[in-house]
């Protein structure tokens, strides 16, 4: 029981919204100290984002000469220059990133949902072993795998392809662990029994009964993995040689390296950095309510 005693995460996304707010918390005297501390925290976190917004509006010369927080009027020129860079390569990186994160997160969520469902709702020989294996996988430092993954994929000639980034992104032990808890918590056994009596096979029960019940949990798993892949640097950096296959992170890193010899590139790097965070920020603000993750605090809360 060395491994199975480690419980990394218990998600709260499947929790009923009624438990989220209680009376008596928030109807109290305002504390200026709390407000000031929170605003300082917010300022610290927003400052670099504010800076990149301002810096992207500067011309190449102004970037290093005018006052840091003085905006200028060159934002659209900068976006145009960046778009023209090597025939729109930047937008190709953006599309690649969306492909890696979208397809990778979708596939890994589906794979995790199936595995989590099996682990939560079936009894079968080897179940405890599989679960322990997956829990051990949660603690494996992911990026340490990148180089051996590269060497293995190189043996079958798959490096420098979309697959070399997509396939390793499809397995997330952490996602399987989450899905197991969601399935255990959200799907009453009676409902599966009823489906079975109505003649539904295992697969149909899973697709028509289990998946809809796990929906809000699956959104959380999807978001986790989407952000992880979107933000990943080391795996694509190692796997890919062709810059047409790069995601944004590797592409921007390359642009920055060029800037060392060609300082006029810096403004494109800054503009690219700004544009690269827009999609995720929008996704965050739109789906905020799914970001409720409760680590380790016991599987079940009423």
């Amino acid at each position: 029981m060395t491994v199975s005693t480690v419980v990394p995460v218990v998600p709260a996304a499947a929790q009923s919204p009624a438990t989220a707010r209680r009376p008596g918390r928030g109807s109290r005297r305002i504390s200026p100290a709390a407000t000031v501390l929170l605003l300082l925290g917010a300022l610290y976190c927003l400052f670099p984002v504010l800076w990149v917004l301002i810096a992207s509006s500067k011309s190449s010369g102004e970037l290093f000469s005018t006052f840091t927080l003085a905006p200028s009027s060159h934002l659209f020129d900068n976006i145009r220059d960046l778009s023209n860079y090597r025939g729109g390569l930047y937008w190709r990186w953006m599309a690649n990133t969306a492909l890696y994160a979208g397809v990778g997160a979708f596939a890994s969520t589906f794979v995790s949902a199936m595995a989590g469902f099996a682990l939560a709702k079936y009894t079968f020989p080897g179940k405890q072993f599989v679960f322990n294996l997956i829990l051990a996988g949660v603690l494996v430092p992911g990026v340490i795998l990148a180089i051996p993954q590269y060497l293995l994929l190189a043996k079958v000639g798959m490096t420098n392809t979309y697959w070399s980034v997509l396939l390793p992104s499809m397995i997330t032990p952490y996602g399987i662990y989450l899905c197991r808890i969601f399935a255990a918590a959200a799907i009453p056994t009676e409902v599966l029994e009823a489906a079975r009596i109505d003649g539904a096979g295992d697969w149909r029960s899973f697709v028509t009964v289990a998946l809809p019940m796990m929906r809000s949990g699956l959104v959380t798993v999807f978001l986790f993995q989407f952000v992880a892949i979107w933000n990943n640097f080391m795996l694509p950096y190692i796997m890919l040689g062709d810059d047409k296959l790069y995601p944004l992170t590797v592409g921007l890193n390359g642009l920055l390296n060029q800037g060392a010899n060609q300082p006029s590139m810096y403004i494109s790097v800054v503009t690219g950095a700004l544009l690269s965070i827009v999609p995720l920020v929008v996704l965050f603000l739109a789906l905020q309510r799914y970001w409720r993750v409760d680590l380790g605090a016991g599987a079940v809360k009423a």
Partner: protein
Amino acid sequence: MTALTAFPTSTRTPRVDSRGGRKAGAPYLFLAPALILFVLFLLAPILYSAYLSLRRVKVSGLGLGVGSRHEVWAGLSNYVRSMTDPDFLPSVYRVLAYGMIVVPTMLGLALLMALLLDAGRTRVGTFARTAIFLPYAVPAVVASLLWGFLYLPRVSPITDLLTSVGLTPPDLLSDSWVLYAVANIAVWGGTGFNMIVLYTALRSIPTDLFEAARLDGASDIQIAWRIKIPIVLPSLIMTFVFSLIATLQVFAEPMTLRPLSNTISTTWTPLMKVYRDAFTRNDVYSAAATSVVIALATFVVSFGFLKLVGNRAFNQED
């Protein structure tokens, strides 16, 4: 167990009896894609690393010709070479120092912000929560890029500020500051996510647990320290372990800062050394040995810590 939306009150999961008319192979089929991917992209790379770490290339003759280079068993020589590499220990110490700055600062700030939000004595809660969580949406490469520019003396507002009051601004990318500069990027990127995790845990504490204390005249700080923090301790422990694992793998931040600073070497962190050995020096054997050492060290540290804190994080379902 009747309401579909509610959590069961027992942590025991009811089982579907596999003999009751369901196909016995079904759970294995559901698990198959996950297990195949697990074996191919987790297990196989780990085993392959371990194998490579014990191999080396033997060159016969002058090393020319097709058959002159072949792999042989190397014993532990790769480990010896990797551990005695003069770049190895400094990179380990650097990452340890980095971790000792990042993890406590990040989790301390995350806990403080989560407690302030949970106390509910402010009107800026929603704004602050969203703002502090925002950096999670920024990839480490982009975060390093933004901060990297802000550290450049010609761009940095800190430089302007200090110069205007007559102080000499430090070069944040110089040898004596760069560790803090990288640590700041990690703290900036990680505080929000951990804050949300802790805040979610705090929100699920029933109010009556501290209402009584409040009526008895306990201050918010006493309530936080004596009641709230002990209750969310399992969440703190897990955020600690995950932060530790992430910290030991630091790679993207220093790699991105390198073009802006000449103080970050190619072996600045152990993982960067692995990368250099594998791809710049084409010595995958030594790189594999170093990887194995990092993986084992991470495991020892995270398991050791979980053992040390004992049952608090143990909330196993079965």
